[in-house]
């Protein structure tokens, strides 16, 4: 009971910090907007790209990348919120939490829930751009998107925590950005279909958990004919990944 309240406090703290950070809100919208309008319009028009549906028919490039941009938002927010643990360590706040009479697992779980909730909010904000791109989403689709986005967020936040616990300094952050976050995004199928890639690249996209997240988002938003895998398969893989990462995060927190 007491540990559940600790989980709640740590979750609440991340939300308060998020609400207070106006720049984060603005920049969280600016980046997806930039991607959508520059790539979705500029690039697509310049090169006349459209995406073939498997069963025939076409989808505009901008709607094709829209689920990918939501995936990107979830990825960036999740990892950045999780990595704020390193800031907490640098600023001493982590000590305050570590000497509290609570179990270490509640710190990891609270942080994972906090980061993923913030990521979900960011994702929903980007989702609100859908009508401006001419994308019509039914109410049921919107309802189904929320838990899916949360599942993607919590798996990525847990992954971020695993990294943050092992990361000693803030300098490592650039490394994480260059060698983890960017590759995960680029190789997730957010910007291009993964179906006709050379085999070596295919392997990388297959081991990327975000690929399944983007695939599931795309299937839900644009219809199964644009998804590579069935929704159930994507959700299953994401859940397994989330559980493994969560387990690792708790394990590492218990040891420190």
């Amino acid at each position, binding site marked *: 009971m007491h540990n559940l309240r600790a989980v709640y406090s740590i979750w609440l*703290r991340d939300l308060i910090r998020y609400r207070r950070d106006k720049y984060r809100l603005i920049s969280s919208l600016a980046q997806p907007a930039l991607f959508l309008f520059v790539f979705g319009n500029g690039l697509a028009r310049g090169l006349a790209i459209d995406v073939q549906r498997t069963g025939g028919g076409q989808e505009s490039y901008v709607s094709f990348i829209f689920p990918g941009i939501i995936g990107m938002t979830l990825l960036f927010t999740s990892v950045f919120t999780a990595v704020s643990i390193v800031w907490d360590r640098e600023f001493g706040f982590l000590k305050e939490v570590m000497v509290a009479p609570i179990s270490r697992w509640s710190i990891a779980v609270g942080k994972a829930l906090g980061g993923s909730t913030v990521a979900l909010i960011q994702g929903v904000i980007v989702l609100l751009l859908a009508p401006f791109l001419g994308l019509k989403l039914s109410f049921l689709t919107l309802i189904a998107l929320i838990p899916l986005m949360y599942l993607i967020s919590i798996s990525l936040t847990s992954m971020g925590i695993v990294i943050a616990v092992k990361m000693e300094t803030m300098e490592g952050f650039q490394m994480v950005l260059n060698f983890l976050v960017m590759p995960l995004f680029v190789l997730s199928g957010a910007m291009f279909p993964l179906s006709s890639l050379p085999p070596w690249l295919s392997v990388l996209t297959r081991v990327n958990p975000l690929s399944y997240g983007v695939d599931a988002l795309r299937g839900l938003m644009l219809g199964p004919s644009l998804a590579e895998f069935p929704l159930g398969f994507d959700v299953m893989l994401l859940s397994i990944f989330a559980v493994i990462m969560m387990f690792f995060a708790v394990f590492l927190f218990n040891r420190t």
Partner: protein
Amino acid sequence: MIEVRDIYKTYGDIEAVRGVDFTVHAGEIFGFLGPNGAGKTTTINILCTLIKPTSGSASLAGYNVVDDAEKVRSSIGIVFQDPSLDERLTAHENLEFHGMIYGVPKVDRRGRISNVLKMVELWDRRDDIVKTFSGGMKRRLEIARGLMHNPRVLFLDEPTLGLDPQTRNRIWEYIRDLRQRENITIFLTTHYMDEAENCDRIAIIDNGKIISLDTPAKLKSMVGGDVITLSTSDNKVAIEEIKKSHSIEALEQDSKIVLEVPDGEGFLAKLVHSISVSIDSISLRRPTLDDVFLKLTGRTMREETMGPLDSFKAQVRMRR
């Protein structure tokens, strides 16, 4: 209240704590005095369950710090050497968070928060973001936070490091007031000698060992009388002459000669006559803990207390 038995802590080849052994009684203000790197913070971290001792045992309020870590944690409040507030939250939110993770029931939380905030005179600033606070205000807020959950022992690790003398005095007023109002045990570390004199008992720690433990008065009586400090045109000659005519061992410290005598006032005239080189200045004072440390270790604490890194850290603390 705190029992520490023969604690060792080694990091690889480095022995941070080498057999520390002491008892702190309930309701006492107990001080750990020593230069940086003496093992003060390591000992505190062991007592706060943040690190495990390599060997030896310690208990706090009857709970073993290794086996009953969670019970120990709920019995203590800690003010760390480095700041540990969430600067993006308000003062009130920091305390609310603390109350929640320490399991202070919701009905009591509001009252406790207003009590401790009023005590450290931050009630008017309760809804301000901590980032806007001065170094002294943050320190006071941390003390308030450490008291939120009615701890039996309050740990203060260098509570006034980097603060101006006025703020230091204020913080000491709170600490003394606190002990009077609540029956709380206070364990603090410091390397300010004048600050240590506020303690009921002091353990002087050097190189990971306690070299002396007693009340400030008794410690000072070890020095044996009064302290005379003088500077001359040639200190070496003067030290020789003092030794020859009074058989007193004088030490040179910061280009001044320091010596102890039982009756300072009567001795001054004799001293002046026995020195042939010219005397630039001379002073007589009661012994301080500085003199005790000098006597015990042959070194002064001040030489090593404020290295460049510390003053930098102190500056950073003031700014944050």
